[in-house]
């Protein structure tokens, strides 16, 4: 299937790869080298920046959503990046601040993960859109929990502290060079302290140029309804959905 002469624009539509369109046989041009350095700096900034909790709280206030804030046992960014085990633990004092918030059907957690940029750009919008949908289904939610230095499994500990039946953990994904604003969402039914990853359902690449927030909220709602009907999440739920065993959950 020869296409004859393709324009560089047509080639760029095929792939975002950093191809060489100009001269070959020489070092990368100055402008491209500096473009690369800028993209890397953006990614590093997204990883290392602390989330602006005050700004997130203000945005949740505007959305009419109550909120709490906790910090994992990792404490700071450097520890968080190098110690995933600590990022999964909720200190007792933080767990205590969640006392009396439950029991609820679904706990909504917004964590920083590996990209403060993703949380700042897409986090509150996703949580608000999903909260609307779940409330319309008659599900109880409790306050949105903002979680600093958070890995996915921190959501299980938060859900246990709140007495939640299902937990949604939305957090920043590890930035790529081209996109530092991807939000990932992990949904777990009946979370335990030792939930295996295979018991989670995941939505990834939530960002303007990927899966847009409203579509992600719609998919998350369907998954939550399906797992609450099935009483399980993760690989087992995906199998049921693939087998058509859960009408209306596709």
């Amino acid at each position, binding site marked *: *299937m*020869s*296409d*004859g*002469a*393709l*324009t*560089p624009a*047509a*080639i760029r539509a*095929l*792939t*975002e*790869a*950093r*191809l*060489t*369109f100009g001269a*070959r*046989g020489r*070092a*990368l041009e100055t402008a*491209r080298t500096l473009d*690369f*350095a800028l*993209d*890397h700096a953006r*990614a*590093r900034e*997204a*990883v290392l920046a602390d989330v602006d909790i005050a700004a997130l709280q203000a945005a949740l206030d505007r959305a009419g959503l109550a909120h709490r804030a906790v910090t994992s046992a990792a404490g700071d960014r450097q520890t968080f*990046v*190098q*110690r*995933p*085990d600590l990022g999964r633990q909720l200190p007792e004092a933080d767990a205590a601040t969640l006392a009396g918030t439950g029991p609820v059907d679904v706990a909504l957690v917004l964590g920083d993960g*590996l990209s403060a940029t993703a949380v700042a750009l897409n986090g509150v919008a996703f949580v608000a859109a999903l909260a609307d949908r779940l409330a319309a289904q008659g599900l109880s939610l409790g306050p949105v929990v903002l979680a600093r230095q958070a890995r996915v499994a921190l959501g299980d500990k938060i859900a246990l502290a709140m007495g939640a039946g299902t937990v949604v953990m939305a957090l920043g994904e*590890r*930035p*790529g*060079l*081209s996109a*530092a604003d991807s939000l990932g969402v992990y949904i777990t039914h009946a979370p335990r302290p030792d939930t295996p990853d295979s018991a989670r359902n995941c939505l990834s690449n939530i960002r303007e140029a990927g899966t847009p927030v409203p579509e992600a909220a719609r998919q998350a709602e369907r998954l939550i309804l399906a797992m609450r009907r099935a009483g399980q999440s993760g690989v087992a739920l995906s199998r049921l959905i693939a087998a058509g065993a859960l009408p209306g959950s596709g």
Partner: protein
Amino acid sequence: MSYRTDIQGTRYVFPDLKTLLARASPARSGDALAGVAADGPLERIAAQRCLADVPLTDFLDDVMQVEGDAVTGLILAQHDPAAFAPVRSLTVGAFRDWLLDPATDGGTLGRLAFGLTPEMVAAVSKIMRAQDLIAVAAKIEVVTRFRSTIGLRGRLSTRNQPNHPTDDSRGIAVAALDGLLMGAGDAVIGVNPATDTLPDYIRICEVLDAIRIQLDIPTQHCCLGHVTTALAAMEAGAPVDLVFQSVAGSEKANAGFGVTLGLLDEAWEAARALGRAPADGNVMYFETGQGAALSADAHHGMDQQTMETRAYAVARRYRPLLVNTVVGFIGPEYLADGKQIIRAGLEDHFCGKLLGLPMGVDVCYTNHSWADQEDMDLLLVSLAAAGVSFVITVPGADDIMLNYQSLAFHDAQFIRETLGRPPAPEFEAWMDRHGIGAPGVNLPALAAALGQLRLPAA
């Protein structure tokens, strides 16, 4: 058996060989995460001094509580006492001196490979500085062959890695062409598929095979899907050159990858039976990386570098064409920064070569590591000095499917020119025929090159 040493009145005791190896390991985040690292520089040096006095034969008597493990069994079965004889009486420290002795040449080291166990090699690497790792690896020549000859002294090959986030045929092809026009791909043109379905695996092989045949390139291709997918593809008659698999240093870690030695045996047999490589050619490709076993909770309390070296026992069973450590891919919880990645890359290359493997390195890092392209420059230069078999290259150093940074096609060009490292001779002749890399030759633009390819229908 415990090990002890006294430094200025302080006694350091290490309860067993496995603990001693872990405490002697140069600092890295993964060993701290596993809770096996030395508690500081003094304990580390004490362990290194203690390790230097350990006889190599101790490693044959102690399987380090990784009993009943298929990789341990393989390591013991591979050990060749006759090949071990020249170094049998040495301690780890004396072994380092012997390796660095100018009288110990590459031929001697090549004959030693199956006399050594991975743990012996890991042990000596822990008391070697970067220049030692470079100096000894540079003596060793491990040559493998398919359509091109990899690993000849003074040469450096590249994997051309044209990954695409949706495995689009033309997206893959145009990235591969970008590299070929810069002379990248004499080790392999290899795609990590975004999906692991059989139809996609077969289509990717067909796309890469079409490029190779139509451009008459003396190289081989590989779709780096799971070995079970490769088996099914070979069964279906797909054009499979190299069979790929990620492997690790314990049976449990390999189970995490969904492989057993039996499954790898089956795949090796099937790939050889295709007859695409020359008789006695090499048809397997493996990737490894420090931290893989720990991330699968399958490290048996062993430090990550020793565990990594055990993976090379698995690899060498299959006389592979290519092996590379994906050194910085796993992330900062295992290798925190540029310094740790550079050190680990040199260790893995040295250990692989000493065990007889055609060792390459994916010189790479992720965006949550404290590393950047400059660290990759330094590792590339060091590895080229050490005689690395091949490195991985992608367009503009940015892998848009796996979301990490490796080397650019330009980086391979830099090292060829700066240190004088041509590619495999067959591929070099192909480049010469087409004027690739020659000054004043007008190469086709990417658009024209892609337009001329006839790719299989999607």
